[in-house]
């Protein structure tokens, strides 16, 4: 059946109101979910040889227009990630969820360019640090390090840091911060207290986030990946173990538009660390006496 025949068989297209509704799907609609579906660009060029036809009035789930959000987006600073995020960056006024377990895989470096842009625009940032009563992974003691923040372009003087004692305080602080207009960004390490309660609380935050223009990042443990969430964007972060280099693998669990199967690998740490990993053997470590002890003096003299 070619496109003309199908078009002749199909009655006049229904006026569509609901976004993403696909009435009168073609018989091979399940092809939408197949991984080898043609990209929208292919479809426009060649036109539906994979059994996929363009009908007027029918919206396709992998149409980029569907994925385009009304919200304005801020570039992430990573071209590879921008290409996969609907709107080309972090959405303003939407809840974005980041799921990971191990601190130190480069999760904040992923956010740093966007935070720096907010700081340079003079907008404030609120950090809700991990709860003191949380699981013992040293993060309850860790503090953001101002010299490193300044190096990343984030002015620490326009950030407020909150260290909640218990989970309730963390949720309260996030909610209060989202009520403030003109907030630039919010990063919150949110404790988990059961899927049901989390969903309700996140939904509340999501609705609050939509009232303003801030970038809202909720950081949660990766065991929450399987539980439902109202966030428009959910990213699971892990470390990809390549043969030579270690990259940050960003798996997009949920986004507007078609799903993405393969994680996006990003280089967040300096490349020289990857290269030097093999060369700097452990044997070098005891030989620290080889390091000239006047190195610091030299550095000072150079200042």
């Amino acid at each position, binding site marked *: 059946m070619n496109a003309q025949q199908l078009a002749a068989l199909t009655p006049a297209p229904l006026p569509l109101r609901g976004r993403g509704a696909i009435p009168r799907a073609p018989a091979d609609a399940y092809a939408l979910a197949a991984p080898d579906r043609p990209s929208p660009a292919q479809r426009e060029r060649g036109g539906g040889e994979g059994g996929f036809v363009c009908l007027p009035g029918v919206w396709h789930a992998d149409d980029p227009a569907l994925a385009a959000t009304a919200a304005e987006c801020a570039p992430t600073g990573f071209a590879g990630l921008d290409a996969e995020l609907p709107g080309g960056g972090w959405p303003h006024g939407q809840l974005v969820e980041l799921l990971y377990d*191990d*601190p*130190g*895989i*480069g*999760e*904040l470096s992923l956010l740093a360019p966007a935070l720096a842009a907010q700081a340079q625009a003079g*907008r*404030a940032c*609120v950090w809700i640090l991990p709860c003191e009563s949380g699981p013992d992974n*040293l*993060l309850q*003691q*860790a*503090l*953001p*390090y*101002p*010299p*490193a*923040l*300044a*190096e990343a372009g984030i002015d*620490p*003087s326009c*950030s*407020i*840091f*909150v*260290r*909640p004692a218990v989970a309730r*305080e963390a949720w*309260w*602080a996030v909610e*209060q911060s989202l009520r*403030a*207009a*003109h*907030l630039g960004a919010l990063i919150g390490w949110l404790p988990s207290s059961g899927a049901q309660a989390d969903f309700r609380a996140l939904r509340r935050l999501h609705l609050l986030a939509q009232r303003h*223009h801030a970038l809202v990042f909720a950081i949660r443990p990766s065991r929450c990946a399987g539980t439902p969430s109202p966030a428009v964007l959910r990213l699971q972060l*892990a*470390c990809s173990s390549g043969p030579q280099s*270690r990259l940050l693998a960003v798996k997009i669990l949920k986004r507007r538009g078609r799903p993405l199967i393969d994680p996006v690998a990003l280089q967040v*740490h*300096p490349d*020289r*660390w990857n290269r*030097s*990993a093999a060369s*700097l053997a452990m044997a*070098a*470590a*005891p030989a*620290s006496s080889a*390091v000239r*002890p006047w*190195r*610091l003096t030299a*550095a000072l003299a150079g*200042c």
Partner: protein
Amino acid sequence: MALWLAVCLPALPLQLAARAAPCTGPLAITEGPRERPLISFCNDSARAAGIAPMMKLAAAQALARTLTAVPRQPDHERDALHELACWAYQFSAQVAVRTGTVASGLVLETGGSERLFGGHSLLHRRIRRELGNLGYRAAFGHAPTPGAAWLIGTARAGGLSASDAPAGGQLQAALSPLPLAMLEWDADTTGTLHALGLATLGQLLALPRDAFARRFGAQRLDHLDRALGLRPDPQPAFSLPARFAAHIELPADVTQSAQLMFPAHRLLRSLEGFLRGHDAGAAELVFTAHHDPRAVQPVTATPIVLVLAAPERNAGRLAKLLAERLTRISLPEPAIGLSLTVDRLAPFQALNASLLPPSQDSVRDGLDWLQLAETLHARLGSERVFQLQAVDDHRPEHAIRIVPLATERGSPRTAALPCAQQRPLMILPAPQLLPQHDEHPGYGGRLALLAGPERIEAGWWDLGDPHRPTVHRDYFVARNERGQTLWIYRELKQPRRWFLHGFFC
């Protein structure tokens, strides 16, 4: 033209007792010797139970079992009137306190300021509404002289109908129907006048002037002349004090700190008026919950201090902050009174309200930002809400300073040394000892070193300070099998242990 507004508060002791808590039950004010108190004022609910002024307290308690009886405290009334005068200073530059038997209150000169507030009816409405927020109800009198305004106001406070005299020509007509009792002359004079068949001011004013003066004294005639505007009537100048102090007695013991919100709101409204009069803001508010001195525990007062990042005077915003603060306060004893003092006034920069709705792209509004900071700070405390500053120090743990929010404003920012090496985004304030196997540090598996060593030997200038020891370390960037990139160091001294100091998040 000078125009005066009299604000007459009928049954002031009753109003003072009722404003500290929403009171629906019977309430009475008692006076007289302690062993035989007499009822002097009672509210509608008590009146409905059959209680009347001049009744003995024991008799009244027999009529209404739930009667709340509060002894009259004249010094509290005086303080309250003074506080009210401070509050009223926002509406007029000339405020005077008047006390009388029928009513007590204030007279304000409003002719000079009513244009600012959009005409006298808008001004009166606003004063009435804000008095209501303070917990007072008042009768107003409006006339070209303070004496006439006060007469009209007290007549209305006494439940009589009287008409305002906004122009000088209507003064005589407005005052004529008022009864003689409004003049608050002594009982002998009033009795004599009544015996002469005189009942109203109009009849009194119709008498021949010199005969009246001969019989009743020149000062009586002078009183009438001042009210009619025939002689000048200078009012005692009220000077605004430099500090604010107000107190509310609670009619019932308060055990929950949240119950203090209602009287606190009244105090904040009063403070707002005071600050408007000064055109200033308050940066530090000290609430004090007073406890019964006869209680078992020797706790007499619980201070509740509200520190603001920027001077503020809006009662609504202050009340929100106080509500957050009160969630952290527990009263050791039931409170019987609440007072608010502001010792230092700060210049207040009011922000212009925008004509247009704020656009989404507008840069952060300083006030809004401070409000958020204060809300978080009020609830969680300064140890949980803070800012971080980079400090010029080579020792990583001393290159960070936790700055409380309240002191953040105006403190000079120190620039950090530009650092050639990469620093971790998260740091542990106290380095964590790492286990090691044959000189290899481990954390979540064996660590591979990516960069380093970077030697940091610094801090000799703090020699002898146990909190700021000298460091001798070789720093490395390490990564474990789970992909965590860590900042670790090895001590140069024996036993050359490994420590974890940060995460390259």
